[in-house]
């Protein structure tokens, strides 16, 4: 069982005892889900506006989080009850996993979970990490150095014994809600709650970023997270208005072919949404699918030869690197004019790219970069954050 700090249990029991007295005036006529019990369990409530992959509902003495998985017209749900430690589990949720809140220790599997925790101001609660190979957050790197944060392995290498012994408040995984969840069965049987953080299935940048509210709910930091996220969303919308309204839409290609196949973002992916909001002309903007399209080099070639900009070129750092991959790329218009930009400006000494970490929770910065690249002069001049021009 999890260790619960004595002070916390005491405080909670005290709240529970006082509850009937303090809440009496609200008792009649109020909806159960709206009822506020004395010191409200969560005075600030998160409303999900952009994300489609999860919901948070607030009830009298608990919160309920649902991770949704839509496959076609079918929908699968993973149910979580977020209860203060010691509270009795509300009836009627036979399949729900119980998470004691506020979560004090997190084990995360992906670097962007670190970014989410950082955003919520709880990066110091990360006690375990899939692999320390790709970390930018100074807090977590310090934790790895001092041993406060341990590496627990990812996927098949996940060290179940270590995780169970660490008694984490929650384990956050990257997996698709419906795929291979079985590998976490051992952990769940041992009473460790496992939550898939499927933000990568979201189709809009704001939807991806909004998953910070999940960590907010788990750590009872809704107020802080909501305020920050609202300002992110507001900035993003303003920028999207500016970029999306640009009169000229320069054409853009994304990525680089590997062995004859060119993976390019599908029209319903968050990357395509970024491009629309940045006022780019993207040939596959109307294609179906939320992931990427596996196209032949040849089918992208007509676009690639003429596109004004070439973005997100992958693991290359200069135009010379691009030619070393394949000399044919030198024929692209954007290559010849020098309009090649990569999103690896914030790559650290470990070779880890912060675009995939903090970029996921700062879509407004990514969008501002894109608008500055595609429409010079539209925004006040400033240096790029995640992007850089390849020389």
């Amino acid at each position, binding site marked *: 069982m999890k260790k619960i700090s004595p002070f916390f249990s005491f405080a909670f029991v005290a709240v529970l005892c006082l509850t009937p007295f303090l809440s009496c005036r609200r008792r009649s006529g109020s909806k159960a889900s709206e009822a506020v019990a004395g010191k409200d369990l969560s005075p600030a409530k998160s409303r999900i506006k952009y994300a489609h992959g999860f919901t948070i509902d607030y009830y009298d003495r608990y919160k309920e989080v649902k991770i949704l998985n839509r496959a076609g017209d079918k929908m699968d749900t993973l149910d979580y009850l977020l209860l203060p430690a010691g509270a009795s589990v509300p009836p009627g949720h036979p399949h729900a996993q119980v998470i004691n809140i506020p979560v004090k220790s997190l084990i995360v599997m992906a670097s962007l979970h670190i970014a989410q925790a950082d955003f919520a101001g709880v990066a110091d609660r990360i006690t375990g990490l899939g*692999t320390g*190979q790709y970390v930018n957050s100074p807090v977590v790197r310090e934790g790895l150095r001092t041993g406060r944060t341990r590496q627990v392995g*990812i*996927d*098949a*290498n996940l060290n179940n014994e270590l995780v169970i012994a660490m008694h984490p408040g929650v384990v956050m995984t990257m997996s698709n809600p419906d795929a291979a969840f079985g590998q976490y069965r051992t952990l769940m049987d041992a009473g460790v709650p496992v939550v898939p953080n499927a933000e990568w299935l979201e189709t809009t940048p704001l939807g991806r970023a909004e998953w910070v509210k999940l960590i907010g709910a788990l750590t009872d930091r809704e107020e802080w997270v909501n305020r920050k996220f609202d300002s992110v969303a507001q900035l993003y919308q303003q920028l999207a208005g500016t970029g999306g309204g640009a009169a000229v839409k320069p054409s853009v290609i994304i990525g680089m*072919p*590997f*062995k*004859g*196949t060119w993976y390019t973002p599908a029209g319903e992916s968050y990357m395509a949404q970024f491009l629309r909001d940045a006022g780019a002309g993207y040939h596959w903007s109307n294609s179906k699918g939320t992931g990427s*399209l*596996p*196209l*032949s*080099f*040849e*089918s992208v*070639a*007509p676009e690639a*030869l*003429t596109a004004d900009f070439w973005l997100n070129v992958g*693991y*290359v750092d200069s135009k010379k*690197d691009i*030619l*070393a*991959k*394949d*000399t*044919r790329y030198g*024929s692209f218009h954007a290559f010849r004019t020098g309009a090649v930009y990569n999103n690896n400006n914030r*790559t650290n*000494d*470990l*070779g*880890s790219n912060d675009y995939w970490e903090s970029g996921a929770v700062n879509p407004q910065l990514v969008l501002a970069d894109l608008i500055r690249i595609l429409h010079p002069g539209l925004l006040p001049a400033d240096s790029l954050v995640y992007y850089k021009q390849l020389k």
Partner: protein
Amino acid sequence: MTKSPFRNVRVAGLLLLLLLAFLLDLSIGTIKIPLKEIFTVFFSPSTADPTWLFIIKGIRLPKACTAVLAGCGLSVGGLQMQTLFRNPLADPSILGITAGANLGVAAVMLAGGSMATFYAIKDLGVSGSWLIIGAGCLGSGVIMLLVLALSRRLRDNVMMLIVGIMLGSITLALVSIWQYFSDPEAVKDYLMWTFGSLGGVAGGQLSILAAVVVIGLIVALLSSKMLDALLLGENYARSMGLSARRARIIIICSTSLLAGSITAFCGPIGFVGIAVPHVARNLFNTASHRILIPACCLIGMILLLLCDVIAQLPGSQTVLPINIITSLVGSPLVITLLLRQKSINAW
């Protein structure tokens, strides 16, 4: 030599088929380009549409040339192995040489998965696709040297065969360990590589691949007499004054050059090496390697070009990996041939 008119007809037929397959591979793809424009691209490039020029000369022509080289090399490598080991199931990968290439590539892509190592390697001045190709060549070269060293101590080709298979499984086990401890993204990249591709070789790489394959083929042709003698058994070969050991070394060298370089450049392409020699023997009804080697070249080129056409999924925007198509198309072909033939009589 009473069959030679027949043989000439068959060779002429295959040459015609090869020409057609090559043209078909050039003219079919995602982007519809009229046949007339394809000739414009080659005969008056200044008047051709620049996009089409790029697609034909920059994408389709290198791909078709790679198919031709890989088709030749893998088929002849397969023929040599089947003869050396007198085993109808042998193919160029049987000595573990392609597994060696896999190991080299895995070392770069998976260990390179930690970007720190990747940058360290880049500091040496090798980068991009050359790095992967170099690693593949190095991997197959190391295994080849190992095979050769062992072959000096082994008297029997059957023992050699077993040792080759063992080396292959050791190598693949090492790759598996590497995969097991690597990041999903790195494993995915490596997996993409194992699907095989003809589309990633162009420019200087194509010239080098061509040079290595041609050298391998010349060695193979020069060794055709030894191969003929080996078919009759090692003892017979020895009585003919042939040093079985030296023959073995020459044949292994030739196959290693062919299979190792092709795997390093294109990724593993299965099936061609095992199937084409059977088709060649069936079609030409001979055991003479002076005929079988060119025949394997022709059939291998045609097979791989046609597989590449199918891999384009004409009319779609996607390409399928070539390694899938070769097996999917090739296996039924071989089954049909065997059903018609009723017995394998080449050895």
